[in-house]
């Protein structure tokens, strides 16, 4: 933990609090009022003890006792108000952070999401941020209150006798120094523990997601064993963390006990010397007790502090992770269907196995292109480059003549759409799943999009029907159609269909193909499939193999040439019955 890191963490926290500054200031004032009351109570008792020693009568004692009682009651009521105020402020503030993080994470690369499970990300965006909010709501308030109480006590004691004030100041400083020293080790152990827990929960989330497959495979025992291994890690790191905390606990308890002992002995000595009164000696005792409560709580809450510290570290790390895809574009390609031009395009994952090498391709505006090749030939990666989910390692890619990096991301996203291989659905309404939670499109528009792809049954059952949670789900075929509906709604200038029609039966496939052909009109389309029958309606064909383009040309030309790779692939396909509209494959 370098100081630079520490400084930036405080900066981050400060910038988090700034928008709600007024709230925090009011909170500060309330806490100060509470601190003032807390210090006054023992002063009343001091006066009571001295007056009793001087031989005051019962009624005076009663009066002083009543004052003390009133102060005690008021302090507690104020404490509840402070708690409410602090919790509201903390949650408002950290919800802002939560949203910021969610936004940031969603903007991160495909690479990032590949290597981080959703369970882990939930722990970061929700779990870690909750730790920070508990820190702000509970700990900061208590710490601020304690600090004010201690400062006030030192002032009061100094007024009585400067040596007492000095003594108290030295005592508090020593106690704090000792606690702070133990902190650093506790921080790293706490962060490790959170990491182990993240892996444990991430693993569980994964198994739950894959639950049906695991059940069907009789994998319960295997999962149970992995769980034991992950839990052992969690236990070991928890014990390490506790050990680090206990070191601090020893110091704090020693400090508190030392405080009592010194207050007693010092008090006896000073009273004997006639320097202070009995009441003042008792005040010393009461003030040491007052200090010990926050000191003990510091260690108690230190766990919250360390959790929050570890959480802040991870939050900052996550926020510092940058998407490699940077939105610096300012040039818009011409309106209308986009052309796609690649020259010497290369891509690899940083290892020595290039996924794409030297790809040269020119797709005219409005043309539909079928991209074929074995699995792993690079065609999926090519589509990711066109969608700008990843950046090429070499070469250039241009849409509508504009290099893809120069196009503003928002514009790119609205003009380029994807019908993916695996349709991702959400727990939400049918409407939510088509519009992706966007309230903009009208119900009529959503209904039209669904009807266009043949999902009339969904429209008739009601767009507000819940999917996934309470309502029934969709079959794989229906999900594919829904993905098409999503694209219809967006009306893009370039469509990438990634093995979209692979999972449906021939009749529905025919329906789908008609809808897809409909969709391809007036746009540039890239259809990536290994089902050759889906390529019936495209203009051009591109064949990928081993990360390179080994053949490209118009479909009719390639089909006619028996020596072409494409024709040979077709022949091997042994495809089912042709449609009535076409007699040759």
């Amino acid at each position: 933990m370098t100081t630079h890191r520490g400084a930036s963490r405080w900066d981050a926290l400060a910038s988090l609090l700034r928008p709600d500054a007024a709230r925090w200031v009011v909170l500060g004032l309330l806490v100060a009022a509470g601190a003032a009351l807390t210090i006054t109570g023992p002063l009343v008792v001091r006066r009571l003890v001295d007056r009793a020693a001087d031989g005051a009568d019962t009624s005076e004692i009663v009066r002083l006792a009543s004052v003390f009682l009133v102060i005690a009651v008021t302090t507690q009521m104020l404490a509840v108000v402070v708690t409410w105020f602090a919790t509201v402020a903390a949650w408002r503030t950290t919800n802002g952070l939560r949203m910021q993080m969610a936004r940031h994470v969603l903007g991160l690369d495909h690479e990032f999401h590949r290597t981080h499970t959703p369970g882990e990300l939930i722990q970061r965006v929700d779990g870690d941020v909750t730790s920070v909010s508990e820190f702000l709501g509970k700990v900061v308030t208590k710490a601020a209150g304690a600090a004010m109480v201690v400062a006030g006590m030192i002032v009061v004691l100094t007024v009585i006798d400067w040596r007492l004030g000095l003594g108290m100041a030295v005592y508090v400083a020593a106690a704090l120094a000792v606690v702070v020293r133990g902190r650093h080790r506790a921080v790293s152990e706490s962060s490790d523990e959170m990491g182990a827990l993240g892996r444990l929960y991430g693993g569980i989330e994964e198994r739950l997601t894959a639950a049906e497959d695991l059940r069907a495979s009789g994998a319960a025992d295997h999962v149970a064993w992995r769980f034991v291994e992950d839990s052992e890690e969690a236990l070991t790191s928890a014990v390490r963390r506790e050990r680090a905390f206990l070191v601090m606990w020893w110091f704090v308890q020693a400090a508190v006990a030392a405080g009592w002992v010194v207050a007693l002995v010092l008090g006896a000595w000073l009273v004997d010397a006639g320097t202070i009164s009995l009441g003042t000696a008792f005040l010393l005792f009461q003030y040491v007790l007052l200090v010990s409560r926050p000191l003990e709580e510091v260690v108690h809450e230190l766990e919250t502090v360390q959790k929050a510290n570890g959480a802040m570290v991870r939050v900052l790390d996550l926020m510092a992770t940058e998407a490699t895809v940077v939105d610096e574009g300012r040039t818009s390609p011409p309106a209308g269907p986009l052309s796609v031009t690649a020259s010497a395009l290369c891509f690899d994952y940083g290892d020595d196995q290039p996924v794409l090498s030297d790809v040269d391709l020119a797709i005219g505006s409005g043309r539909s292109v079928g991209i074929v090749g074995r699995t792993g030939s690079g065609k999926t990666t090519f589509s990711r480059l066109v969608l700008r989910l990843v950046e090429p390692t070499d070469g250039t890619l241009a849409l509508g003549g504009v290099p893809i990096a120069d196009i503003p991301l928002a514009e790119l996203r609205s003009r380029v759409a994807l019908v993916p291989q695996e349709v991702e659905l959400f727990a939400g309404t049918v409407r939510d799943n088509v519009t992706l939670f966007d309230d903009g499109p009208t119900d009529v528009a959503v209904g039209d999009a669904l009807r266009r792809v043949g999902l009339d049954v969904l429209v008739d059952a009601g767009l507000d029907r819940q999917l996934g949670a309470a309502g029934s789900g969709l079959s794989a075929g229906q999900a594919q159609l829904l993905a098409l509906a999503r694209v219809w709604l967006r009306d893009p200038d370039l469509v990438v269909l990634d093995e979209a029609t692979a999972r449906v039966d021939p009749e529905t496939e025919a329906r789908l193909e008609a809808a897809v052909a409909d969709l391809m009109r007036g746009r540039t389309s890239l259809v990536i499939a290994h089902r050759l029958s889906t390529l019936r309606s495209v203009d051009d064909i591109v064949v990928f193999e081993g990360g390179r383009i080994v053949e490209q040309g118009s479909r009719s030309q390639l089909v006619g040439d028996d020596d072409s790779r494409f024709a040979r692939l077709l022949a091997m396909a042994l495809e089912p019955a042709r449609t009535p509209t076409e007699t040759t494959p």
Partner: protein
Amino acid sequence: MSSIVVEPPQHDDDSVSPLPPGSFDGNVWSLAWRVSQHRARETWLGWSLFIVFFSMPAATGYLLGRGYDALADGDTTATMWWAGGVAASETVRMVAVHHGALIWTKAWIHMQSLLRANMLAAQMASGGPEAGQPVGSAGAAITHFRDDAEDVANFVDGVVDVSGGLVFTVIAGFVLGSADPSAAAILVVPLLGVAVGTRVLDTRIKEYRAADRAATAHVTGLLGDVMAAATTVKVNDATEPVLRRLQTLVDRRRRTAVRDRVLEEGVQAFSQGAADVGLGLVLLVSAGAIASGSFALGELALFTAYLGWLSFLPRMVGRLLARRKQAGVAFDRMRRLVADESADNTVRRRVLPIDPADHRSRPPVVRPARVPLERFDVSGLTVTYGDRVAVDDVGFTVGRGEFVVITGPVGAGKSTLLRSLLGLERNASVSGSIRWNGVEIDDRAAFMIPPNAAFLSQVPQLISDTVADNVGLGPVTVDELAAALRIAAITDDIVAMPAGVDTMIGPRGLRLSGGQRQRLATARALVHVPELVVLDDLSSALDVETELHLWENLATTGMTVIAVSHRAVAFERADQVLRLEAGRLTCR
């Protein structure tokens, strides 16, 4: 929820249980007891040390009282001795808590692990008595494993605190009572007030906690879905709408969290105030004695010291009551994941060697006995969801070594049919008979797993593990593994990987292409050489050549296969082709 949601309605975590919400008030104690006895040694040892830790302050306070008496009398030497006694008493206390805390940390994790292991086992069980209702959203379900388990551990923790506080309070009661009976008596007022007040707020605490949990589950549920579908969100530029929805959920959760936390903190602050209020009352009641000098400084010190610690008990009792309610809510939520939705199944005894000091050996993987398949008969199979009939009176027979293809339009019920054969349709009502060699299969989910039956789903899920473990899901021999990879036509791909079969696959197997995942999952289905292989649309992510290889390879193994397919290559090789339309068989 990353996989495509196939037909059945998923179980809703927040659905109202048929049991009344208060039904756990009695049981929580016994359930928590059983959880604590999972690792009894750690629990009892930790508890004992904490009792010492909580009761030592009685000695410290008494010694302080004597010290201040000596101070008031001007006897400095005696004061020093009493001060020394304080130091000694505190040292004993600190040693006790050092060891106690370390042991309790372990106990804490042990208790949560028991609950987690039981829930996980119930969700992973292939049929049988242990199987629980499948959970809806994995993201939302994490709150059970994270927060609900912690709530139960917190409750046991609270019991330890309260028992310690009780011991201290009893001792303190004696000491204070013998010092000044009337002052001691008046203390009952504030302490009782705290206890009553927190009891009154009990039901509120439980309501607020349940509401907060539900709101949190909504937030984590959406986050999980969205993180899993990050590509879709990004490509569709849906970040803003998604974030707007998230904001709504997050705001709602803020409100529930504030209510929950404030009440909890309020209760605590309230009981802390009891100490000062108590002191005020003592001063008031003893005013006369103070004025006359019979209530000495030492007694005042004694009361002041004890009061600081005395308020611990009402605070802990209040907190315990709140925690009991929270534990009740937690058990109520956790039981939904286990068999019969019975909370008893969350605390079943289990061996969990998670302490490094434990002797650990991996238990053998238990699979059902292999029953070689001669005939597989399905008759009158009907699958209904509520009033919707998904599969209607389907019947067919498969002989040993046959290759049966099932086809039909989208939504015809093919997946439902296959999954109900294997007992995976827990949310539907399934009727009809399925016979293996003429014998009715009682618990399909338990029987129809490798080595008897294996399943490849439409969207196969892999896990973060090595290739070998993803295929074997338990120890397998090198030969078995190699054979499975070969049949699934993925051997070349694995050889090309950096560590071969020991290569780790990334989160949910995303490091592989769609086709590789499909083939790896196929290898997983085949590795135990199942009698019956059930494949739901295997050809979807594969190109024609690869699929051809697969059918050819499968044919050489002689396994009995039931597969969904729409391709000529499949129809041509099939012994039977069954066509399903709107749940009914229209044979071809």
